[in-house]
């Protein structure tokens, strides 16, 4: 088959039944499908599809009751629509989903299904869980064109195998999500962020680890080295390295915990406090990888490692190639931009493996680089075999986003 970036046929089912029919037909014909939500999260390998299957018309909030802190939504619902409903009830997603527009320069409206399919999460993930941890139930159409449900609307559920978790982050390769149920949470009264300035990466990670060892309930822990610090808050933070700790809750409580952290780290120099409005903008910039929004031709990697390991891997990488980085999740998530313009995937993966393991995912690159650089971390051999069997259990003909995660 000749690789193409856009399939020529487009299918837009009006509802779940039509979608199931379309997938069943494709399975019978052996037609590979590219599954599309809002089209804003263009990473993973390009899919060799003969048709695009869009969830756009499966749209709308099915049930949302703020008192139960649970929302059930059709997969094609624009995220903005659900966000608006949450805002009205003063609630939020605790996992703080990343919006990939900024980093990837994509257009279109992110959908709820797309958010779940890539397990989109943000700064609060390291204490409050990822999208998969807030995902309570799913309905999806598997590769045989069957409608399957798993999980439900309740927060505790161990009834049968948990297929909800693997649906999150499977990039549409196990099934086409048609409806998802997500846990939501009341917004805190206020927030504030403390910034310790001028630390080297190793010291910053130590400071964040110490903060996390206290009872101060830090819900954001990031470090922006020189240059990247100047790229958030429209430059208002200045370019000096910034080690950032976010506190959320009731006003008096945030204040009390801020004082405690200031007393702990005061010897490191003056600690700046960002008020709620600036704190919110700061963390949405970090969430959306704003520091690397420019120079879009340069590849961006996402390293997920143990907090104490990631900065060491980045240091080692810098010895070999030009790379900029900043850190979230107490240091465990490193966003790395390759300043030389090449993806250097062999080097990146070797360096991660040599520094305690974890994995590297290529998030921003041209389609041809994404095809040949293997965007998802290659797995150990027994896992490759097992994953293959699991994929066959959902999609025996391999028609759903074929090649997206594994070539």
């Amino acid at each position: 088959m000749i690789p193409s970036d856009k399939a020529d046929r487009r299918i837009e089912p009006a509802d779940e039944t039509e979608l199931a029919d379309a997938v069943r037909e494709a399975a019978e014909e052996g037609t590979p499908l590219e599954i599309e939500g809002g089209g804003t999260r263009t990473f993973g390998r390009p899919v060799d599809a003969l048709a695009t299957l869009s969830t756009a018309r499966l749209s709308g909030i099915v049930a949302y009751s703020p008192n139960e802190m649970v929302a059930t939504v059709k997969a094609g619902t624009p995220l903005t629509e659900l966000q608006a409903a949450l805002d009205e009830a003063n609630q939020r997603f605790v996992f703080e989903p990343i919006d990939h527009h900024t980093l990837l320069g994509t257009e279109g409206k992110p959908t709820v299904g797309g958010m779940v399919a890539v397990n989109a999460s943000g700064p609060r993930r390291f204490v409050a869980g990822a999208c998969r941890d807030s995902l309570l139930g799913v309905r999806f159409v598997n590769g045989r064109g069957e409608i399957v449900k798993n999980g439900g609307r309740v927060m505790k559920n161990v009834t049968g195998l948990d297929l909800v978790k693997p649906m999150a982050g499977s990039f549409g390769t196990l099934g086409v999500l048609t409806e998802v149920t997500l846990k939501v949470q009341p917004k805190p009264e206020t927030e504030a962020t403390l910034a310790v300035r001028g630390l080297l990466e190793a010291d910053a990670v130590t400071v964040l680890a110490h903060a996390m060892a206290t009872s101060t309930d830090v819900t954001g822990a990031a470090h922006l080295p020189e240059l990247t610090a100047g790229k958030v808050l429209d430059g208002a933070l200045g370019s000096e390295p910034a080690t950032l700790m976010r506190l959320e809750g009731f006003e008096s409580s945030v204040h009390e915990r801020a004082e405690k952290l200031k007393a702990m780290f005061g010897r490191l120099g003056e600690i700046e406090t960002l008020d709620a409005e600036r704190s919110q903008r700061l963390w949405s910039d970090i969430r959306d990888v704003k520091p690397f929004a420019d120079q879009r031709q340069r590849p961006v990697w996402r390293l997920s490692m143990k907090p104490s390991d990631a900065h060491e891997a980045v240091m080692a990488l810098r010895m070999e190639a030009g790379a900029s980085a900043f850190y979230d999740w107490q240091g465990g998530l490193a966003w790395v931009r390759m300043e030389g313009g090449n993806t250097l995937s062999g080097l990146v993966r070797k360096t991660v493996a040599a520094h305690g393991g974890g994995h590297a995912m290529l998030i921003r690159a041209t389609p041809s680089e994404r095809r040949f650089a293997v965007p998802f971390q290659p797995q150990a051999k027994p896992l490759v075999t097992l994953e293959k069997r699991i994929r066959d259990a959902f999609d025996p003909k391999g028609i759903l986003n074929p090649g997206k995660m594994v070539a």
Partner: protein
Amino acid sequence: MTSIQFLKPDPSILARRDDIVSSLRSVLPDEAVVSDPVQLRAFETDGFTAYRRLPLAVVLPSSTEEVAAVMEALARKKVPVVPRGAGTSLCGGAIPQEDAVIVSLTRMSRILEVDYPNRLARVEAGVTNLSISEAVSADGFFYAPDPSSQLACTIGGNIAMNSGGAHCLKYGVTTNNLLGVTMVLYDGTVIRLGEGELDPAGLDLLGLVCGSEGQLGLVTEAIVRLIAKPAGAQPVLFGFASSEKAGDCVADIIAAGIIPVAIEFMDKEAIAICEAFAKAGYPLDAEALLIVEVEGSDKEMADQLGRIVEIARRHDVQTIKESQSATEAALIWKGRKSAFGATGRVADYICMDGTVPLSQLAYVLKETGEIVKRYGLRAANVFHAGDGNMHPLILYDVNDPVKRQKAEDAGNDILRLCVDAGGCLTGEHGVGIEKRDLMTHQYNDTDLDQMKAVRAAFDPEWIFNPSKVFPLEGRGETDGGKASADPDTRPSPMEAAE
């Protein structure tokens, strides 16, 4: 008199018993293989004591390598395997069958690594839940999920059942606190999922394994998240004139943006039983009681409790007991924590575990009362109100076979009610054998077939814990044609003795 069927033991396996035992002895030290019928008795049931079966043999491996060697040996002979931790399962998750070998993980109970900068601990699967928290407590950390059996239950069992506890409203359940596992597959292959990083490289297999009830493989090691202990914790107790008022109070606390670490509910029957046992000063005139716990510094707790008490007042709270000291706090919790034990003193009981949406709590409570009344029984309700996980304790007399059957039937009716109210069969105990045949009430054939296909991807011969979770009927070819239920409903050895 028992109604739950087991798979029919495979006569060809029973006939090869000596051969199987000797092949186990060839890969394990002699004292790690139990085959003496008297010693096997200790393994014939778990926390679901109404059912019991003697296993073919029990092995007690000491390392992942030994577990892998055992699985390699058994897979070749196609012998079923039942994984076992401390055996505290309330749904029969660890009950063996006559043609199965139990792999007990209790000898693998070491804490291998504690890493504070990365807030994680690497442990063997047989370590008890509480011992992890105890090992890190002096340094200001804890492991969050706290099932009632935490003194005895193992982390491997917690992973199998995705265990929760009283504090999961804030901290989540096992799956939210698990960073990795080492697991032995049916053929002895060892895989590692997660090395301490927060998200998986490929498919979320860790999420699939957690809560899989020992059906996908044998977890031998785990990496769990550690959390810094809160500055303090303080409960407050409320008595209400009706469960509706208590339920509305819970909803309003949450709506106010307060997320307490625990919201526990007890009904009148449970209050009476617990008060008689614990003398905790519970209000005997209340129809419903809430224990709400908050965390933080003294000032933060006072602030939160102030808001919570004000909300309770808006719902005509009759009794408010705030704890002024650690002793008073412990007393408030003593009644709740002894609920199961105290109930066991007044009657035998079976404990249900359905979970319902919060808005359905009052309705399901009322209907639960009607159901048990219909069967001429009583029930005490104690549960986690913040997450809708109900725990009706149906009281009966174990020596009265008619009452026992009625209690089981009432329990099944209650679980169907939970599902019909938009909830599920089990929140944290698991399906096991107990709720296996109710699975079709929550899931249709396509839903179940998808799960079974995934199960078969891990374990194509259905070697792991085959009598559990999936109804024996309708397995078709998915389990290699094994699913012929034992038509013989003869009593198990223990019942025969009764």
